[in-house]
């Protein structure tokens, strides 16, 4: 997890894929606040890219620039091959944006909201009607189609907002906290929908705090911290083969013995979430996280540890890799 490969692996397709999102050295400040301080990132088309970072790290500002709402102070942006600043309409026609906080026109029905946006994107009325019906079905709001948007719950409004972002069949999707307020069922639906959209060759950029969710749906992850892209890495996205190297959680009766042995054999390890990294290892149960090459590596580790007399308790594939990476980032921040 600690290795942060800046450039994501090229997609497997032989033909060069249509461009997704390319951001280079983007800067934007609001007065004295440097919301974006030299962000660079690439989001592949045909993949879901997660945008992870603490509050106030510049995620929303970045998405606003990508959506074509804000002029960056400097830097280069390409969305679906267009610069949202110079070629605004062309970029916006291919971009679906769902803000983190948005409202709906309360007296309009869900269907009318979608049809209005379709009209705003210059989709002819007949197609707009069909499109609205399809999208309402996609986000499971068909039974609310002709009720005013004011009766929708927060999660339903969120789903309507997602349908709105999809109304013009955008090539690039920018979703700011799309899962907030969604019930577990809707989250699963969202995940499947985003995977599906990515498989159709679209670029999906999702920011979220629900890291376990992101972990399951994202192919790539970009960490943003204090206005910078702090690191990018590739994840084993849902449905994709996990990479050979994976993180394991190893627990022993004696934390000191475990860490002592690991250090003596030259393995690089991190204390797990329960350990305070600032206190020296003590003679009590505890666990570490380490990166192991495949299942054979894990088997070898068990054999060697037992042989070395380490009171091993458990060895399991670690979950929440993204969360740990995120927390590690937070650690740096302090």
């Amino acid at each position, binding site marked *: 997890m600690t290795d942060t490969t800046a450039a994501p692996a090229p997609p497997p397709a032989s033909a060069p894929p249509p461009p997704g999102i390319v951001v280079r050295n983007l800067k934007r400040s*609001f007065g004295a606040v440097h919301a974006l301080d030299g962000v660079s990132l690439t989001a592949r088309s045909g993949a879901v890219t997660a945008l992870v970072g603490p509050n106030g790290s510049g995620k*929303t500002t970045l998405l*606003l*620039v990508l*959506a*074509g*709402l*804000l*002029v960056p102070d400097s830097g280069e942006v390409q969305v679906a091959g267009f610069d*949202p*600043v110079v*070629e*605004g*309409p*062309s970029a*916006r*026609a*291919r*971009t679906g*944006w769902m*803000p*983190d*906080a*948005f*409202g*709906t*026109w*309360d*007296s*309009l029905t869900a269907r*009318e909201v979608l049809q*209005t*946006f379709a*009209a*705003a*994107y*210059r989709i002819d009325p007949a*197609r707009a009607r069909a*499109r609205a019906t*399809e*999208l309402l*079905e*996609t986000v499971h709001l068909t039974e609310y189609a002709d009720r*005013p948007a004011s009766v929708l719950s927060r999660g339903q409004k969120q789903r309507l*907002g997602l349908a*709105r972002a*999809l109304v*013009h*069949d*955008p*090539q690039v999707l920018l979703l*700011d906290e799309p899962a907030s307020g969604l019930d577990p069922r809707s989250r699963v*639906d969202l995940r*499947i*929908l985003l995977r*599906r*959209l990515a498989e*159709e*060759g679209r670029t999906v950029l999702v920011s979220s705090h629900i890291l376990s969710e992101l972990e399951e749906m994202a192919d790539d992850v970009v960490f943003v911290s204090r206005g910078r892209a702090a690191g990018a890495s590739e994840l084993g996205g849902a449905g994709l083969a996990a990479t050979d190297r994976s993180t394991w959680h190893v627990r022993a009766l004696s934390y000191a013995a475990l860490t002592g042995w690991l250090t003596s054999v030259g393995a690089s390890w991190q204390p797990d979430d329960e350990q305070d990294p600032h206190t020296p290892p003590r003679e009590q149960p505890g666990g570490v996280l380490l990166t192991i090459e495949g299942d054979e590596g894990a088997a070898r580790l068990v054999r060697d540890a037992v042989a070395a007399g380490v009171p091993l308790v458990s060895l399991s594939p670690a979950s929440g890799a993204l969360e740990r990476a995120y927390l590690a980032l937070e650690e740096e921040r302090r």
Partner: protein
Amino acid sequence: MTQMIEVPAPDGATAPPTVKVRGRWALSWHGVRTVAALELRQRVRSTRWVVALVVWTVVVGAITLLLFGATRRIFDFDDVTADRSQSGPLLFAAVTFLVLGLGLLVTPTLSSTSVNGDRNAGTLATLQVTLLTSAEIALGKLLAAWAAACAFLVLSLPFLALATGAGPTPWWSLLRVVAIIAVLLVAVCAIGLGMSALVSRSAGSTVLTFIVVAAVTFIAPLLFGLTYQSVSSYQEVRVYGMPSSWNGEDEVQCVWTQEERWVANTQSTWWLLAVNPFVIVADGAGTNADDDGTDPLRGMRDVVREVRAGASGQVDECWADSSEFEAVRSEHAVWPWGLGFNVLLGAIGYVVAVRRLSIPQRTLPRGTRVA
């Protein structure tokens, strides 16, 4: 599971059609209509709107009927000798000013929260990122607010018609009055739109819009009054008056003399009166009652045109005859200037709104987030 998550793909190619690049000022009827329909739909469906229309009709109707009764009582106490030329113009003027005054009170609220209100509700940015240009969003909002204002005007039509029918007021005066009020209201709507784009808080923009309306309605005439003394001075003028030899009884011919009089040079300050909506409507109404009639609109028109002419160097003080010299009734209309000024204010408001709605934005209004 996946079969229920059917992402609708558009028929044909996935590539979106080539977007014609349009600047922020580009307008299309389609775009304007989309925004206006959206705004109107929301407004019409609120119960507040229906209540406002009902209250308006009741208030205007009740006051019209009271005025009708009052003017009849004052002038036409005897039905046999009823002289509509006395009460009719007064009634028409009263109802016109009532509709205009209430319209100026109601209209600022119709548009003065249309941009910042949407921004606070989080619906503006999602609209801005569509292919609508900022000119289309602004014009759509303006048209919707104006249509709402005109709804109030239309509800007043029966009462204006009643007042027109009561007297010698020509029907084309009714038409002119309604048209001028409608233009004044669109100017007020546009001022409100500009304010709502300029100020982030909706209460602030409403207050500012009212202040602009008050400035042209009250403050400008007040300034005219306050500067009246400073533009006045003693000047040598030609006076057409009674000869000094007149004994107070005989029929005499008035004579011209050179005398010093206190003269107001209002030709430099007349525009302070001209921007007033009531003056504009009075001057533009074109009512044509007799000189000795009680037509307030005509009276205001004469005053404001005289003020515009300012010191002519001639003063009429003859009350023996009016054959020789008559205060020249100016045919130079004042209302196009006043209306033009109000429309100019509205145009500025519209331009401000379009500029503020343009994306991508370089600067943000203080204390606001984009989305």
